[in-house]
């Protein structure tokens, strides 16, 4: 059985590689390469998979899931400029793909030893663009 919890955060970013010229970055990332950055209202959907506990009837306590997401993702990223304030985006490009993978990295260890396992991270950068990441090798 799957359960999904949604969270939101607003952040700014700029997409570009220091090894490329401004023109090359513009070609690759489009408007997202504008040097001073821009922002999004990111919407995150975290999906867990597991069997309900026969006593509690729950796969995982949704209140706890909310706290885990809040502490590990929303608090560090909300109202921040990802490139300047949220490692590893000082070193890697904060595309939606990389942000989704980073969120997976932050959440997955928090669920070790629980009945539920992290099944999918879906990150909407806008209503018209989202990324699904289900861990390395998936």
């Amino acid at each position, binding site marked *: 059985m799957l359960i999904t919890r949604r969270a939101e955060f607003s952040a700014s970013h700029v*997409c570009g*590689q220091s090894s490329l010229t401004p023109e090359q970055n513009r070609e*690759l*990332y*489009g408007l997202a390469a504008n040097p001073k950055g821009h922002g999004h209202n990111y919407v995150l959907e975290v999906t867990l998979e597991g069997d309900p506990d026969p006593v509690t009837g729950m796969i995982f306590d949704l209140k706890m899931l909310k706290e885990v997401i809040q502490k590990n993702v929303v608090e560090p990223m909300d109202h921040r400029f990802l490139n300047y304030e949220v490692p590893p985006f000082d070193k*890697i*490009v*904060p*595309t*939606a*793909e*990389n942000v*989704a*993978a980073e969120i997976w990295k932050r959440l997955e260890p928090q669920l070790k030893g629980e009945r539920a396992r992290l099944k999918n991270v879906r990150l909407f950068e806008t*209503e*018209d*663009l*989202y*990324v*699904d*990441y*289900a861990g390395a*090798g*998936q």
Partner: protein
Amino acid sequence: MTRVTRRYKFAASHRLHSSELSESENHELYGKCNNPYGHGHDYVLEVSVAGPLDSVSGQVVNVLALDRLVNEQILRDFDHRYFNADVREFSGDLVPTSENILTVIESRLSAGWRKTFPGNWPRLEGIRLQETKRNRFELRTN
């Protein structure tokens, strides 16, 4: 593997009518969708693309390139058009149901894919077409 999904919109009209069926059979089968002058929808198209994450660019797919492909192959021909008269695949006997529209979209995207994405990746994983808020059609292509 990471999957990226991009959403597009187009407005188009169609009429469901099969040349294999009689007038009354068409009316019986397609109901209002068989009304003689056609009708339209604000279609929502989702294109899902999968591949390994390029560690340098941070991308699975260059969304700008995907947008260009979808614009050239689909939106330019479909948006603000009447499927039965304006879109070549539907000018003959093929009925522009959402199922058939999805199949045409898949074939048009596949035809332009290699030119846009010359390597092994990314791959087209699936397309979804929403005709109205109450129905959605999905074709998995992986």
